C-alpha cells in the first residue's frame, strides 16, 4: 500500500519516528532502528554538546545509520536556549528540521506553551521547519500554525510515562480542527496497542523513545511498534465500523430455524 507521509515536502514511507537516547548501547540502538523500519530519528544536542561540541562521537554513529535526522532541543527551558540549540543543530546535521521542545515543568516534562510559541515564531522566521512538541491544546495549535509550523506534535502523556493517549477527546478535536496538517503523537506511549489507537484516531505518525529504549528487549519492541503502527494506519484507511449498542448479526435472524 503506497501511503506516504509528508513533512515539509519530504515524503516518508514509515510513520514511526524514533528517539535515540537511553538505549543500553549504540549497537542495540542501531539494531532497534533497523527493526522499527523508521526513516527518521530524533537526536538531542543540548547536553551532549558540552563545552565544545564534544558529542561528535555519538552523533557520528547516528549519521552512520543513514537515516534522516530530526534534531531536538530536549532539555531546553528557555526560548534562548532552544533557539541556540536549533542553530547548532542546523549546522551539525545540515537540516532545516528542528523538533522544538521548551520544557516548562520538571515533574511532567510538560511543554511550556508560551515559550514554545515564541521560539517557534523566531525559528520559522529564520527558515527552520519546526516540529513543535506541544500539549493537545487547540489554541496553542492555532498559535503554532500562525507562527508557521506545518507539522504539530502533541503529547499523548508525559514523556516516558507509558500511559498512552491521556486525552482522547482533546486529540480528536485537534485532528478535526487540522485535517490537513500532519499530526504526530510525541511522547507518552508505552505499549504498541496505544500506537495503534493513535493511528485509528487519524493521527499521521508517532514518535517513540522510552517505550523502545527501556523495553526488556528493545529490538523486539521496535518491531512490535512497527507492526502496531502499520496495523493502526491500515485500519484507519480501511474505515473501521462505528460502534453500536446492539449486536448486528452477520447472518439474518429471520428465517433461522426455531426463532
Amino acid at each position: 500500500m503506497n501511503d506516504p507521509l509528508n513533512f515539509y515536502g519530504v515524503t516518508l514511507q514509515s510513520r514511526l519516528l524514533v528517539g535515540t537516547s537511553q538505549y543500553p548501547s549504540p549497537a542495540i540502538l542501531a539494531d532497534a532502528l533497523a527493526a522499527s523500519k523508521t526513516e527518521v530519528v530524533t537526536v538531542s544536542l543540548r547536553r551532549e554538546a558540552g563545552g565544545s561540541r564534544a558529542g561528535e562521537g555519538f552523533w557520528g554513529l547516528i549519521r552512520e545509520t543513514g537515516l534522516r535526522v530530526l534534531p531536538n532541543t530536549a532539555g531546553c527551558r528557555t526560548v534562548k536556549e532552544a533557539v541556540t540549540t536549533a542553530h547548532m543543530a542546523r549546522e551539525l546535521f545540515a537540516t532545516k528540521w528542528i523538533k522544538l521542545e521548551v520544557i516548562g515543568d520538571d515533574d511532567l516534562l510538560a511543554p511550556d506553551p508560551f515559550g514554545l510559541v515564541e521560539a517557534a515564531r523566531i525559528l520559522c522566521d529564520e527558515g527552520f521547519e519546526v516540529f513543535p512538541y506541544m500539549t493537545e491544546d487547540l489554541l496553542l495549535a492555532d498559535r503554532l500554525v500562525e507562527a508557521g509550523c506545518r507539522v504539530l506534535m502533541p503529547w499523548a502523556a508525559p514523556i516516558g510515562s507509558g500511559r498512552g493517549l491521556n486525552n482522547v477527546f482533546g486529540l480528536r478535536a485537534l485532528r478535526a480542527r487540522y485535517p490537513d496538517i500532519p499530526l504526530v503523537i510525541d511522547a507518552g506511549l508505552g505499549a504498541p496497542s496505544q500506537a495503534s489507537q493513535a493511528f485509528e484516531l487519524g493521527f499521521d505518525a508517532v514518535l517513540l523513545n522510552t517505550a523502545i529504549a527501556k523495553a526488556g528487549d528493545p529490538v523486539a519492541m521496535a518491531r512490535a511498534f512497527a507492526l502496531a503502527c502499520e496495523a493502526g494506519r491500515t485500519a484507519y484507511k480501511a474505515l473501521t465500523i462505528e460502534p453500536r449498542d446492539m449486536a448486528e448479526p452477520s447472518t439474518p435472524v429471520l428465517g433461522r430455524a426455531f426463532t
Partner: protein
Amino acid sequence: MLIRIIGAGAAGLTAAFELLRQAEALGRDIAVEIVEKAEGPGRGCSHYAGGMIAPWCEAESTEPIVATLGAEALEFWTETFPVAEKRGSLVVAPRRDRPDLIQFSRRTTHFVTLDREGIAALEPDLAENFDFGLYFEAEAHLAPREALAKLAEALAAKPNATLRYGVDATTLADDADWTLDCRGFAAKPDLAGLRGVKGEMIIIRAPDLNLTRPVRMVHPRHPVYLVPRPDGTIMVGATMVENEERARVTAQSVVELVNSAFALNPAFALAEIVETGSDVRPSFADNLPRIRREGRRLFLNGLYRHGFLLSPPLASRAARVVLEDAHFPEVMDEDRGQRRTA
C-alpha cells in the same frame, strides 16, 4: 619473556597481576613492566569510578555477559586480591518512581525484597523515606583509589614486576615480547570504534549520616548511586552523557547528583561537597569490553562503566592469551575490526 603493559589503571594493573599469578602457577618465567604516563596508578577514569562490584544489579541495563564476567570479579576483589567489602547493594526508589523499581526487579536476580523494617536493619538512615527496596546480598564494593594503590604496591613488591611512572610508552623501543595496551580512552586514535561516554561524580561528607553499603536510587532519567568510602565520605555518581568532554562538571549534573542524595535523606542537604570530578568511559558501540589482538599486541579496552567489574575477567583472559595462546571469542576480536558495529 618480557610483557609490557601500558597504563596503570584498573585494566593494566589487574592484567599485570593475572599474568604474574598464572605464570607462577604454570611455572613460567616472565617479567612484567608497567608503563604509566601519569605519576602514579589509577589516575585515569579509574580515579572517578564507583567501585561497585555489582554484577546482578548491572544486569538491569546490560547484556547477560556483563553479569557472567562480573561474577568472576566478585571472586577476584573479595578473595584473590581482597580489597572489597561484601556488604551487598541496596536499590530503592522514591515512591513516585516505584514502577521503575518494580521494572528493575523484573530484570534482575539474586536479590530479596525488603520492607521498611528490613531497610532499617541494614541502613537505618534510609528507613524514614523508604518502605520498599531490593537487597543484592552477595555484591561488594571497594574504594577505587585505595584498591589500585594497594594493587600497585603488591606488584611493586614482586621481583619480576617493575612499575615506571611518568613515562610515555611511545618513546620506548619496541623490545617487549608482548604488549598489553590498557590506556583506556587515550587509545582512541589506535582503536576503531572507541568512543567516550562522559560521567560526572561528586564526593560528599555528611557526618550525621551513615551509609555502610552502596545504595542505588532508581530514576527514570537520572539513576544515581551512593557508595560509602573508608574515610567516611560518600561518592555520588554518576551521570551518563554521550560526549567526550573529560573535565567539566556542569551545574545541572551537580544538581541531579545532590538532589538524589537529598531524596535519600533530606539531611544530606547540609553535607559538604568535598570533590567534583569527571572523565569519559572508554566504550565500544555495544558498550561491551574487548580484547583486540594485533599480532603480539593486545588492547584491553571498552570497559565502559564497568572498569572494576570487568577488568579482572578481562585480565585473566588476556593472561591466558599470552601464556597459553588461548582464544576467547566472546570478548576477543582480531585487527580486522570490531566484532559488532553500530
